[in-house]
């Protein structure tokens, strides 16, 4: 097969896997945060702040993978 086609193929699959991981991570995070807020509505502000930080960290790791897939498609 044409190497360029293979690279596009890999980039598409990689982007899909990236979104599965990122969505799963942030979904679990949001679910736990909702759980925590409903149990302790008083500490909703703190939980929300911690959730945003953790979401940022997950997102950072997801973007590393995403950049690798973009490089696959461009090179």
């Amino acid at each position: 097969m044409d190497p360029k086609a293979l690279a596009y193929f890999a980039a598409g699959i990689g982007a899909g896997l990236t979104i599965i991981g990122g969505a799963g991570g942030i979904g679990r995070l949001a679910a736990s945060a909702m759980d925590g807020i409903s149990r302790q509505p008083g500490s909703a502000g703190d939980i929300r702040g911690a959730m945003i930080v953790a979401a940022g960290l997950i997102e950072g790791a997801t973007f590393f993978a995403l950049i690798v897939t973009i490089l696959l498609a461009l090179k």
Partner: protein
Amino acid sequence: MSLLHAMLLSDPAPEAVAQGAAAGHGEDPAEILMHHVLDVPGFLGPLSKHLVFFAVVATLVIVIVRLALRGYKDGLPRTPLANAVEAILVFIRDEIAEKNIGHDGHRFVPLLASFFFFILTAALFGLMPFSATSTGNLSVTFALAFVSFLAQQWAGISKFGVVHHFTGLVPPGLPAWLLPIMIPVEIIGVFSKPFALMVRLFANMIAGHMVITALLMLIPLMAQMSTFLGLAIAPVSIGLALFIMLLEVLVAFIQAYIFTLLSAIFIGMYAHPAH
């Protein structure tokens, strides 16, 4: 141009390329769209587009904060602008610096506030037509992350001295056979923190623009197949692009907050290595 091809996943029609080449750049719709995302060298004399907007945003931030400073009378903010700036500054001091760095966190408030205001203004400025997001450039985010890196190391060095700062990176009380593993891990950790800041900001700033570009690029792509398809996809594309634009406003605030917060957390890590 290779990025353009990757996004279109096919070569543009030859006549469109010939037309674009004959009329100079800016005629091809794809070229106009991509010029909003990518850096344009030689935008203003020797300066590239991102550099120009970097300077514009930096000047704007300085002017706005100086104007807010003039709204103070007897130590209290008297104008709406001064109140708005003070609200953000108090949030950065109390919620970001003091909480994550500790009681000496107020030393880092000027730096953290500069990060916040610059990243926020750059991201919002990049949403305007004919402008560019200067933080959507890896060199700019590298510089921001490098300043953050220096602040993190300085927080540790100024508190403990050079030797104690670097020996304190490895947690005390480890068994000796773990040291060959822990020392490289901690050295990687020192550099991966600012590296993550750099990539996160860059990717977030460019991702929204890329999605908008891809959505708008559907219109010429479909119009090449048939006029009807082009007309049919246009409202859908523009509606989705508008939605992503609104999301971008949210992302601008969240990313400014996250960059500032993570910088504060990392500074706090080096200022208080024991916990």
